[in-house]
């Protein structure tokens, strides 16, 4: 057997991330306890090389490994999101871990492994490969969620996330098995070929797609598979919560767009209606419960559920325009949420344990630290969808794509939901600007250099996408055309 022809250039971004992860992991036990931060720096350097590699692969739209690995613009776009998310998370974490006295170098390779898994997920339309990526990502995340080993909440988060995640994984595998059983292939295109044109859709194919929907629905925290999210988000270390809401969510949606938007949407009847129901339930439940949260991380967990509901609109609509709108939305959401969690992590790191995560902590913050207050306000406005922020543009293009296909009721519900959400986002802003802290105000640490860079980047990106969306939208649009 000769060597198969492997396009290593196409693989280079994910290979770089993977190798960096392995090497840094190997390095961790060799470094002394005091020098664990070296791993962090090596990690972001590796990621930036990977980002460069991604930029070199844009426009190639090639495949390798016999079509199992897709290097199209869709995967490059999402790989870019993942890598940036990972880098921003690392920048946020360096000081956070030091302040929490939890400087264990394994943290960074775990982020890298998760990133690698996401990149694999977004770079294939082969169910088995997607599943591989999904598991590499998930297992790393389970550990990361419980990384604050001495915190009860963190351990609890990890256990819950793991148990329910394993439960959901069962559904995913089962779904893949059913689909394979019916069609004899793992490839989405092959699956459509096998199933398309059949007058009677096979029951097992329907069950298979339903199971896949459940499995991925868990990963994006769609109602009613969302129950893990609040506990996991609240308990996980703050930078990881930001990472979880940005990267894995985008990865799961990338896979869903590949599988459902292109694949099953047209073959399985009523799948669209089901997505409609799930989208509406997800955005409504997320927003309504978020109204009553007093912990900012938990509130953003429900907000993250609500945003998943909005993005599910793209799967209801199912057009290429909707997919690219979803891609833009995910980019905007990832940057905004990462930015918000930078501030949250900074505030949180003021205390050794996690007592600084309630919304009351933010009382009067903007008066003492106007820049932090303004930054968090910007992110909250972006989450609520005010112009001229990225969040507004994401919503705008997504809703526009849905309206152009005639989904008026859905968009009316979505807009009403956004209105509800304004309340709890602005609550934080009001706390920061308009209320005086009673008693001793919380001591927020000074902004360390790396966090400053990351924060500036997030602020600039959120504004840039908000003011100048066209270029980004074009890129996201190109990426979807490549996927078809």
């Amino acid at each position, binding site marked *: 057997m000769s060597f198969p022809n492997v396009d290593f250039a196409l693989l280079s971004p994910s290979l770089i991330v993977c190798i960096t992860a392995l090497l840094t992991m190997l390095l961790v036990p060799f470094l002394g306890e005091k020098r664990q931060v070296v791993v962090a720096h090596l990690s972001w350097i590796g990621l930036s090389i990977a980002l460069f590699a991604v930029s070199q692969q844009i426009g190639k739209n090639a495949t390798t490994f016999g079509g199992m690995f897709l290097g199209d613009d869709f995967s490059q776009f999402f790989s870019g999101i993942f890598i940036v998310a990972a880098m921003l998370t690392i920048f946020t974490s360096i000081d956070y871990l030091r302040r929490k006295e939890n400087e264990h170098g394994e943290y960074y390779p775990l982020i890298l492994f998760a990133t690698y898994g996401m990149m694999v997920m977004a770079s294939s339309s082969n169910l088995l490969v997607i599943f591989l990526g999904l598991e590499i990502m998930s297992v790393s995340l389970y550990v990361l969620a419980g990384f604050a080993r001495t915190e009860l909440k963190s351990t609890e988060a990890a*256990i*819950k996330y793991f*148990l*329910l995640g394993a*439960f*959901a994984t069962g*559904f995913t595998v089962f779904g893949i098995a059913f689909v394979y059983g019916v069609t004899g292939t793992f490839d989405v295109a092959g699956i459509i070929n096998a199933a398309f044109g059949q007058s009677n*859709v096979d*029951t097992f194919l*329907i*069950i298979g*797609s*339903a*199971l896949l*929907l*459940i499995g991925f*629905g*868990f990963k994006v925290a769609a*109602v*009613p*598979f969302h*129950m*893990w999210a*609040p*506990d996991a988000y609240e308990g996980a270390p703050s930078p990881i919560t930001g990472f979880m809401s940005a990267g894995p969510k985008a990865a799961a949606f990338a896979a869903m767009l590949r599988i459902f938007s292109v694949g099953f949407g047209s073959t*399985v*009847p*009523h*799948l669209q*209606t*089901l997505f409609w*129901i*799930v989208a509406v339930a997800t955005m409504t*439940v997320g927003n*309504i*419960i978020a*109204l*009553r949260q007093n912990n900012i991380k938990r509130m953003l967990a429900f907000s993250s559920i609500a945003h998943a509901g909005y993005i599910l609109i793209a799967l209801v609509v199912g057009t290429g325009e909707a997919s690219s709108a979803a891609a833009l939305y995910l980019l905007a959401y990832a940057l905004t949420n990462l930015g918000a969690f930078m501030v949250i992590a900074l505030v949180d790191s003021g205390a050794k344990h996690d007592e600084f995560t309630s919304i009351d902590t933010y009382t009067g913050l903007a008066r003492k630290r106007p*820049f932090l207050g303004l930054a968090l306000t910007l992110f909250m406005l972006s989450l609520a969808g005010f112009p001229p922020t990225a969040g507004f543009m994401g919503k705008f293009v997504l809703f*526009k794509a849905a309206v152009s296909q005639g989904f008026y009721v859905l968009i009316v519900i979505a807009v009403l939901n956004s209105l*509800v959400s304004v309340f709890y986002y602005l609550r934080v802003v009001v706390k920061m600007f308009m209320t005086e802290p009673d008693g001793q105000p919380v001591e927020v640490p000074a902004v360390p250099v790396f966090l400053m860079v990351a924060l500036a980047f997030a602020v600039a990106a959120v504004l840039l996408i908000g*003011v*100048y969306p*066209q270029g980004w939208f074009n890129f996201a649009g190109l990426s979807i055309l490549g996927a078809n």
Partner: protein
Amino acid sequence: MELIWLIPLVPLAGFLLNGLFGKSFSKPVINTIACGSVALSFLLSLNAFFGLLRLAPESRSFEYILFSWIPSGSLNADVGFLLDPLSAVMILVVSGVGLLIHVYSIGYMAHDEDYSRFFTYMNLFMASMLVLVLANNFVLMYVGWEGVGLCSYLLIGFWYEKRSATDAGKKAFIVNRIGDFGFALGIMLLFWTVGSVHFATVFNLAPQQLAYGGGIITAATLLLFLGAVGKSAQVPLYVWLPDAMEGPTPVSALIHAATMVTAGVYMVARCNVLYMLAPTTLLVVAVVGMFTAFYAATIGLFQNDIKRVLAYSTISQLGYMFVACGVAAFGAGIFHLMTHAFFKALLFLGAGSVIHAMSGEQDMRRMGGLKSKLPVTYTTMIIATLAISGIPLFSGFFSKDEILWQAFSSRFGSPLLWVVGLLTAGLTAFYMFRLIYLTFFGQRRYDDHAASHVHESPRVMTVPLIILAVLSVIGGYVGLPKALLGGAWFERFLHPVFAKGAEIGKLAEGAGESHATEYVLMLAAVAFVVLMIFTAKRYYLDRAKDSEQFEHGFGGLYKLVYNKYYIDELYDRVIVNPLVKGSNLLWQKFDVLIIDGFFNGAAWLAGQWAISMRKLQTGMVRSYAFVFLGGAIFVIGYLILSR
């Protein structure tokens, strides 16, 4: 010329720098950023202007699209800038006069605690104003329009500890809202009927798509004009401008005299094609302008606050500009806009210098005899006063004469307009010289305490005065009319912008009465003005003791004018009070009971829902998995059963 997008951006950068870090900057740094950015804008504007001059007159229109801003279906608004003779003149005036006033402010605001905040707002104003005049579409213009309104509000209420200042700020903002509402409606109507907000497109399509003098174009132009009436303080929305004098004097000079208030004139001139399509609107513009000019001049006659006199004078002069627009002499309007910017900025800055010297005193009855104490201020203010009065050889003469001549001779003009214009010019000369005599001549009427502080302003304030004085003299010669052996270069430069409108209005170039008529009218105007100056001299200098008696001699008329025709009281009684009462009633009955009830009810319902849903979130993995399973069964069941 490709750099025009930098012109508004540089002050914006200054705004950001000073706004974010101003608190920690030292004064020289703030000065450098604030004045430097405006200076850079001015240099870029000069560069753009000369770039434009190098082109052939008919191709002097240059658009630069920075990026596509709102691409939404048929509504396409770019962040795009338009450089043509009209906007070139505007950016030069705005950035040039703005620069001088910025420099002046260094001295004037030197002792203010909120130094950086002042310059932050000023730079934001410059950026907004430059966006307004450079925009290549209505939407971006509206952004600038609202931006300058915001800055005006912020700067009027700059000394926010003063109740009257914040009230004045609010008044300006609220009155302007009425105008802005009309402006926005006008834009929407145009977009709805013509299908674009891009200037060039609208002006190209409107003559083809809209009937000449039809209802739509008349409505649209009237709505746009409503915006202009608000921003440029015309009757009946002028009431905010006198109160706006509560702001620092450089603000009054920059925003409420030289630049922002002229935005309405600029907008009407920019839309000249539309206005030429609607002769009814033109008539309204001319009448409103003329009425405002005369009306404000009469109020100015007997005011005692130095800045209020200037404020009413500004309203009156803006009326002149609208008269010019109303008789389709847009070039003359812009010409007067430019010269007015010079001499009115100078008058305000001079008044500021006087106030500065008098330690904050603004009442002219407690001044007098300052001529020798403030020589530079005195000299420059005399020049400005001669200019605004329309004395030959000074800039105001040429521009005002052009307007009067056009009001008389234009196809859209009438001798009646000329007569009222002439009367107004006389009144202007009277109250301006009254101001000069009361302030600089006669006996000292202030106490010894104030006297010990009287001093000429520092160099940083007087140099801008001198430069503006020079401009107030020579600024008029760029538009020397043909009758006076000039070439009317200014209007020829602007002509490409107004050519299409002129074509629609069938205005033949160079036609009209002979030069002889022009000379006669000119002489009549000058003679009347001189007469009025001597009247002022007689009652306020020669027989200064009798001046009070002279004023009261007008009896009821004096009282009426002195109290500004009781318009503020009338507005209060007829509009504000019923509104307040009505809204109080609405608030108590409708808002509290129905609206609040509805929203509180909805919020309560959502809250209850949230509580009950939160109960599902038990924290037990078992119940999570159970919900998960239920969802799974639903999903699978739904898909299978609905197949």
